[in-house]
């Protein structure tokens, strides 16, 4: 009984706000992810992503992340496949500042996200011979509607640089919750998620402005 009481007390303490003279509502912050944008420029898939975060007492941070993910994989050198998709996505969730010194210039976040995207896939390969019958074979689908729900666990840091400017980064662990991927098998790049099945870990590097 004593242990159960101590555990419940610790849980309440985790969710309770520190008692001090700082007000509950501490403002908004907007941020932009540079990792996804760099991926977009340097590889054949990536995403532009921004976020709006509410600061509650420097402890709890409800957040909405909105982005636009895109893949344009042209003529794979080995398989000859082309894969194209582009769609918006969003995540909603909350972060908790784990540092004891809540109101300082640094923050260590742990958080959860729910994410969703609805996207269409174009898939094609130039005609190729059937390996047995040798007939020319065409392969592809166009505008195949798909959707993806997933959850993320986030761990991140945030440091004040000067004035309202912060820099921060986070590591995300992702798990698919539900999906609809058409009749053609699996999708490859999922907007906001990354390459399905293999990109279970990802990172962000954010430029953050308090507003």
């Amino acid at each position: 009984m004593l242990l159960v009481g101590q555990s419940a007390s610790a849980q309440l303490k985790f969710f309770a706000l520190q008692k001090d003279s700082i007000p509950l509502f501490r403002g908004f912050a907007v941020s932009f992810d540079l990792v996804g944008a760099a991926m977009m420029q340097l590889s054949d898939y990536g995403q532009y992503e921004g976020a709006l975060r509410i600061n509650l007492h420097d402890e709890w941070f409800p957040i909405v992340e909105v982005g636009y993910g895109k893949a344009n994989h042209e003529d794979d050198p080995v398989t000859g496949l082309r894969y194209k998709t582009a769609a918006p996505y969003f995540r909603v969730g909350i972060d908790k500042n784990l540092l004891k010194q809540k109101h300082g210039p640094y923050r260590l976040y742990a958080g959860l996200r729910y994410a969703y995207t609805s996207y269409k896939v174009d898939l094609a390969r130039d005609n190729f011979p059937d390996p047995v019958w040798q007939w020319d074979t065409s392969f592809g689908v166009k505008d195949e509607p798909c959707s993806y729900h997933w959850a993320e666990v986030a761990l991140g840091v945030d440091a004040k640089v000067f004035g309202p400017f912060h820099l921060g980064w986070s590591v995300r662990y992702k798990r698919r919750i539900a999906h609809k991927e058409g009749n053609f098998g699996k999708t490859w790049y999922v907007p906001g998620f990354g390459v399905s099945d293999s990109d279970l870990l990802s990172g962000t590097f954010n430029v953050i402005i308090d507003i």
Partner: protein
Amino acid sequence: MKRLPIFLLIALLTACSSIDCPVQNVVSVQYAVRNSDGTSLSLKDSLTVTSTRQDGDPVLLNRLISKDAFSLPISYSHPEDVLVFTFKHNNEKVSDTVWIKKEDIPHFESVDCNASFFHNLTDVRYTRNAIDSLVMKNSFVDYDRNTIHFHLYPKSSD
């Protein structure tokens, strides 16, 4: 706290992508040879299966004997496969033609994996010189080699 950046660096490094193409990636039709009572039957006559294409007749199965099951390839994207089953017994050849209608479904795993097709078998017709009957048991053809698609009932050679 000082170890956190090291942990995060390791986590990012282990996030490298991998290629996850299926190891068993052959799409083929599975046949089981059956007695009239439905029990398993080993072929007593040798069975050769050929098809037709522009540059000749490829042999899909060559002189199979004493086996009770076999698999045959299926065309990627042709509405109907035409197969010739030739049974040979004591130097006497008897042939049957089998027409298998199907729908072809493009199947994609990843841009790293070769294009393939799954199939939905819609109809089968055949001549009855050596084949007593050919019964479709499962219509969907994919990587699964354990699913039997047809039961082949040969006529008795005795």
